[in-house]
C-alpha cells in the first residue's frame, strides 16, 4: 500500500481518531442522539479539518513556534465562523439543525490534535489526505454510535433529506416492546464507544497494549 493511501485508510481502523487516538470523544457523546446531526457534524468536521490541515501545512515554515497554538486556533476559528456564516446565508435549514454544534467544531480536539501532530511537519497534499482520513474515521464512529442510540432509543433513523424513518414497526410496540430511554442519555454513548473499542481490539490484536 502506498504511503498516501495509508494516510487515508489508516485513521479508519488502525489509527482511528476516536477509538485509538482518543480524540474527539466529547462530540461523539454530544451529537449522537440522532443520526442526522451526527452525519452533518461529521461532514463539517471533515471539511474544516482538511482545510485547516492544508493552511497550517502551507504556513508551517513561517509560523513562530512559540505562538503556534494560537495561530492554529485563529485559523480554525476563522474557518468555522466562515462555514457558519455561509450556512446561515445559503443553507439556513442545515444551519438551524446544527445550531451550537458548528461553534463546537472549534473545540474539537481532533482538529488541534491533527494540526499539531501532522500538518506542522508535513506537506500540504499529505496533510489534506490526513484531514480527510481522520474525518472519515471520526465519521464512521459517530455514525455507528448514533445509529445504535437512535434505533434503540427512539426506534427510528433520521437521514438527511429523507427525514425520520420508523425502523421498528408498530406491531412490536403493540406486543409490549419499549424504547430504551437510557440510550438517549450521554452515558450510553460512552458505553457504545467502549463496545466499539472492545470489538475493534478483538479483531486487530496489534492494537492491544502490553500490560
Amino acid at each position, binding site marked *: 500500500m502506498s504511503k498516501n493511501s495509508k494516510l487515508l485508510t489508516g485513521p479508519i481502523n488502525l489509527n482511528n481518531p476516536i477509538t485509538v487516538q482518543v480524540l474527539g470523544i466529547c462530540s461523539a457523546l454530544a*451529537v449522537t*442522539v*440522532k443520526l442526522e*446531526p451526527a452525519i452533518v457534524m461529521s461532514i463539517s468536521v471533515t471539511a474544516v479539518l482538511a482545510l485547516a490541515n492544508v493552511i497550517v501545512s502551507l504556513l508551517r*515554515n*513561517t*509560523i*513562530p*513556534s*512559540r*505562538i503556534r497554538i*494560537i*495561530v492554529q486556533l*485563529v*485559523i480554525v476559528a*476563522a474557518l468555522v*465562523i*466562515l462555514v457558519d*456564516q*455561509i450556512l*446561515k*446565508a*445559503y443553507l*439556513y435549514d442545515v444551519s438551524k439543525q446544527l*445550531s*451550537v454544534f458548528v461553534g463546537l467544531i472549534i473545540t474539537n480536539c481532533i482538529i488541534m490534535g491533527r494540526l499539531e501532530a501532522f500538518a506542522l511537519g508535513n506537506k500540504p497534499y499529505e496533510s489534506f489526505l490526513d484531514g480527510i482520513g481522520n474525518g472519515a474515521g471520526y465519521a464512521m464512529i459517530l455514525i455507528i454510535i448514533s445509529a445504535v442510540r*437512535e434505533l434503540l*432509543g*427512539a426506534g427510528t433513523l433520521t437521514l438527511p433529506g429523507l427525514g425520520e424513518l420508523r425502523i421498528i414497526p408498530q406491531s412490536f410496540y403493540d406486543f409490549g416492546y419499549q424504547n430504551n*430511554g437510557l440510550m*438517549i*442519555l450521554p452515558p450510553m454513548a460512552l458505553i457504545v464507544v467502549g463496545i466499539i473499542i472492545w470489538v475493534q481490539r478483538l479483531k486487530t490484536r496489534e492494537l492491544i497494549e502490553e500490560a
Partner: protein
Amino acid sequence: MKIDTNSNIYTFIYASVMVILVAAVLAFTAIKLQPLQEKNIRVEKMQNILQSVGIESTVENAETLYNKYITKQIVVNYKGEEIEGDAFKTNLSAQYKAKKEDKVLPVFFVKLDDGKELEVIPLTGKGLWGPIWGYVALENDFNTIYGAVFDHKGETPGLGAEINKSWFEEPFKGKTLFEGDDFVSITMYKGGKGAAKLAGDTKHGCDAISGGTITSKGLERMFKEEWLYNYEAFLRKNKK
C-alpha cells in the same frame, strides 16, 4: 537571508498581520452575507406565523401568503391598549427583558380563506440551553387555542428539541387560556404521576417531554408568568 522565525519582532509582526488579515476576511464575509441571512430569518418568521394558523408555506411563497392572510398587525402594552410600533419588527428578546410597563407586545390578525378570524401571539422564553420561542394562534374568542408552533435554538436533540415536532404541538389545539374568569393558561404534565393529573386537566394541560423537563418547564413559564401573562389585559378585554 534566512529569517529567524523565533525572534520576538518576527513573532509580533506575524501575530499582528495574521489578526488583521483574519479580521478583514471575517468582517467582509459578514457584511456581504448579512442581507441574505436577514431575509432567511424574516421568511422563517413569516412561515412560523402561517404555520400556527395551519397554512403550510415554502421559502418561495411565504411572503406572498403572509401578505394575503395577515390582515392587521398591532402592538399593545401590558394594559391591553394599542400603541405605536411595528409588530413584525419588534425584537421579542428585548421585550422579554424590558420592564413590564415598557413592554411592547405584538399581535397579528389573520383571516383565513373560509372567513375565520384568528389572532397570532408570538411567544418567547428560555429552555435548557438557550432561547425557545413559538407562535400561538387563538380563535376569535381570544381564549381557545387554534394552533401552536414552537422552536428552539439549541435544545438537546431527541429530548427538549422535540418541542418543534407536530406530536408535541398538536395537543395544544382546542385548549383554553381562561377557566371561567381566571387566566390559568397552559400547564405541562410529565408521564408517570403526571399522567393522572394530565387526564384530569383536559382544558389546560398538555403532555411534557420525559427527559426534557427543563425545556418543558421553560415552555410552561413562557405560557405563564414569563411571557403570556403580559397579554392578560389585552385578552381579557377582547374575550368573548
